[in-house]
């Protein structure tokens, strides 16, 4: 160990000390560090003052004083977070109807008020932390003089977007509902599809400043306990000032933060989330984001579109094209570069001559050509995503010209290269989930570099490196190439194709496998002799109770 090394270490140590100090200093200034456990004072005035000071006399903090049974009381709420109608229509009249005559102790009064408020969601608290965060969640605090207890009334209401069709994940067949930014709405979208008491929603508050509500959702008895525990411990470790979107959470809890591959599925579609939950996965809903994370996943779930669930199983072999297109999107430009610069003998003679003829006008090597066209294309994609819609049209047209005829005419690229680039582009957008597509897009450039410097050998090295990475990658502890890399024969039913639902008796092994719930009843092809029963009974069986076991009690449920 030389002198220089020691110096370097010393410098690193000083840097680390400084950042740690800054972090500590910063953590003290972040608002709301830990909930205040201080109790309320029995004095209403002191409490009101405390509230006003806490919120810094904020414009939207409303404190409405009332008298209830000869006692001073105050309603405190953030105007911007509550439904004014609820306060004016339900809360205030209820309080006023209680009358003026007094003689109650503070404790009795709280009980009385509680019993007479026409409000569904009501909680009693006596710690400042709970009160402050209750207000921030859009609840109304009812403080009463002489009592340390506060009633928190749920009257939250804010502007929200209606449930619309998801824009990113479109389907041909399937529900057109998408999640919105509003958490209760999202929960209701899931709950409506999973009407079982075993469905759990577990609320977390993450982010010191944003105090974002994060809900994890799963089926009790189906989701793996280990997965849940691991998830909880990872969520517990999150200590940040803000969570704006599920992406924040994803990044902070994923197994390998340096991997380009998405380790959790994100979706806008309630039906997909429900399908995942039914498979034993856990969903993470974040307030303020229409994107829901599901985990653990594997590479092959990333390649499944929502349609795959609904389209008939026979045609689910279409997934094969998605598998192929991954390879095309990743390797086609690299292969083109490798073939045209190193392995000319791999190209059929006629094609080789044709490519040579096209390339005669292009001044620079195929490697640069590929790089250039690839970068132009990526810029176009970015522009297309970011630009406002009216301008977007112009960009597409110009883009089509640039990567089309014009580039060839100008001698900027060969026709073969244009074909390669456009094929690659099309292939990279066949991924039903955007995350994987982005990963592939990102890896394409290094592959071109490898192909340009080492040829096929480089491509193989690159593919090998990616494969090695993929087999070591985990999604919340479960292997990323799951039913293929640890090969599980039983789970092949949903990889290349989806087995018919009447054969999907077991769930993926690693994600819970056979557990409490019944999946399908095997053998639905029971022979029903024609007219063995009177016609009405038969119709009944077909329409209503085909799935109920027969011969056990009166199988006919009275209609109407």
């Amino acid at each position: 160990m030389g002198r220089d090394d020691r110096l370097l270490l010393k410098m690193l140590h000083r840097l680390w000390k400084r950042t740690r100090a800054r972090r500590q200093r910063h953590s003290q200034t972040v608002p709301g560090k830990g909930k205040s456990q201080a109790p309320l004072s029995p004095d209403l005035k002191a409490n009101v003052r405390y509230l006003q000071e806490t919120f810094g006399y904020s414009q939207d903090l409303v404190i409405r004083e009332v008298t209830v049974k000869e006692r001073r009381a105050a309603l405190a709420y953030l105007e911007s977070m509550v439904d004014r109608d609820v306060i004016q229509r339900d809360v205030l009249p209820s309080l006023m109807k209680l009358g003026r005559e007094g003689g109650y102790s503070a404790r009795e009064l709280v009980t009385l008020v509680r019993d007479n408020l026409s409000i569904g969601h009501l909680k009693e608290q006596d710690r400042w932390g709970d009160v402050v965060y209750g207000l921030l969640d859009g609840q109304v605090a009812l403080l009463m003089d002489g009592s340390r207890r506060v009633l928190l009334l749920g009257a939250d209401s804010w502007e929200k977007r209606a449930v619309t069709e998801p824009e990113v994940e479109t389907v041909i067949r399937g529900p057109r509902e998408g999640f919105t930014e509003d958490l209760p709405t999202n929960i209701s979208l899931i709950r409506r599809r999973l009407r079982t008491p075993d469905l759990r929603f577990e609320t977390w508050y993450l982010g010191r400043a944003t105090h974002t509500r994060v809900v994890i959702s799963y089926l009790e008895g189906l989701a793996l306990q280990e997965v849940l525990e691991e998830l909880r411990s990872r969520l517990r470790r999150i200590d940040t000032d803000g969570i704006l979107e599920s992406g924040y959470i994803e990044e902070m809890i994923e197994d390998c933060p340096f991997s380009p591959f998405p380790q959790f599925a994100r979706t806008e579609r309630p039906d997909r989330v429900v399908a995942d939950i039914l498979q034993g996965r856990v969903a993470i809903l974040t307030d303020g984001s229409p994107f829901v994370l599901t985990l653990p996943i594997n590479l092959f779930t990333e390649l499944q579109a929502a349609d795959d669930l609904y389209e008939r199983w026979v045609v689910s072999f279409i997934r094969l094209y998605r598998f192929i297109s991954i390879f095309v999107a990743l390797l086609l430009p690299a292969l083109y570069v490798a073939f045209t610069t190193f392995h000319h003998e791999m190209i059929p003679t006629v094609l080789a001559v044709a490519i040579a003829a096209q390339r005669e006008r292009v001044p620079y090597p195929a490697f640069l050509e590929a790089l250039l066209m690839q970068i132009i294309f990526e810029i176009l994609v970015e522009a297309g995503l970011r630009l406002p819609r009216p301008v977007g049209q112009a960009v597409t047209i110009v883009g089509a010209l640039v990567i089309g005829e014009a580039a060839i005419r100008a001698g900027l690229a060969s026709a073969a290269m244009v074909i390669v680039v456009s094929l690659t582009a099309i292939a990279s957008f066949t991924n039903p989930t955007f995350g994987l597509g982005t990963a592939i897009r990102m890896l394409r450039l290094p592959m071109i570099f490898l192909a340009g410097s080492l040829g096929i050998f480089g491509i193989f090295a690159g593919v090998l490196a990616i494969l090695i990475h993929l087999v070591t990658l985990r999604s919340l502890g479960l292997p990323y190439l799951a039913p293929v890399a640890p090969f599980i024969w039983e789970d092949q039913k949903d990889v290349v194709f989806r087995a018919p639902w009447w054969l999907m008796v077991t769930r993926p092994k690693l994600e819970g496998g056979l557990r409490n719930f019944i999946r399908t009843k095997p053998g639905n092809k029971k022979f029903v002799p024609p007219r063995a029963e009177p016609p009405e009974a038969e119709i009944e069986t077909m329409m209503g109770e085909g799935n109920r076991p027969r011969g056990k009690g009166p199988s006919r449920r009275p209609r109407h």
Partner: protein
Amino acid sequence: MLKRATAFLAAGLFLMLTTGCWDRREINDLAFTSCFAFDVEGEERIATAEIVRPAAVAGGGEGGGGGGTGAALPQRNVILASERGDTLFGAGRRLALRLPRRTYVAHTDAVLVGEELARRGLREVLDHLERHQEFRRTAYILVTRGSARDVLVAAQGGLEATLGREITGLSRWVRTSGFGIVPTIHDVIVELSAGASAALIPVLEISAQPLPPSPGAATSGNAASGGSGQQGAVRVPDPEMLRTVSLKGAGLFHQDRLVGWLDEHQTRGWAWARNQVRRAILELECPEDKKKVSVEITDSQGKVQIQTSKGELQGIITVKVEGNLLEQQCLHDLTAVEVLRILESQAAAAIAGEINSAVAQAKQAGADVFDFGGALYRQEPQLWKQLKARWPEEFKKLPIAVQVEAKIRRTGLSLKPWQPGAR
């Protein structure tokens, strides 16, 4: 320590960036050769290359012919270059001096070997082709009567853009027409490495045929294409000749030297015996008059065997063919079984004739192209060991029996011959 790690990392990175490109060649910096001709003159080797002009070939095949050392050829969009050297490789290298692009021979379709070089021995050609890291063993090899360069230069190609592709097409077609095969370099190397070391390589020849008169040249009336000798047709005083190539028999090689020739029918005789015939047409005579009948052979099984009895060797060639009646000139009902039997025996005789004539030619040249040596080796390895050294002489005096069995199965869609006013 930290410094060292960084240094290693940086070194690795730079090593990655600096390697690899040493054999980087842009595809448009290559001169694709399509066909090679090798000749010998005195002690000098001559290599002639047909190089594709990509722009012309890919761009629809229009435009003027090639320059280089070759004549202006309107048909092929290639450049011909020829050079001399002490070795084939030397000639090839010198050839590169006059080309702006690096010659790339991996896409070479065919190699022509001149008669003189073939007589002196194929060894150096095969060695050159096999040692060259770019050459493929799948390229076809052919010999020419006379100089190979002349054929390469004179040939104008027909339907295909280059002579190499023309030969590829011919080889594909000759396989299904029965007149032998065009072997690849690999085939020849394998054949010549075997104990009998004899091979048969087809001959490529220029066959000139008149060009149809171009529309601008003949102004009087309608130009009848093809029938230039008939009445009413426009007589083209000196029809421009199109020099296409054709396969014409084969050269017999023994110990890599050219030792004799076979004509087309003898070549087919060889092909019957070596089971190389997929399809063939036989022209037979009607049993009653001198008119002709065509029989198409649809299935042929050839086998070469050797028998030993009392120390005497006996070669046996068995051929079983099946065919259909395809065409008849005479008006006899050929569906009768007896007539078919006659035709069958005729077919067998014709095939046996071809084989016998090929055998005679091969015996004369002392080249065991039928691979009786291989048959002997398989049946009597010990005996083969003894005879191997003097096998050419043994082969010359080997009695060979030819047994042909022909069957005519079908007569096509019509049973009786068609004639006007039959109904």
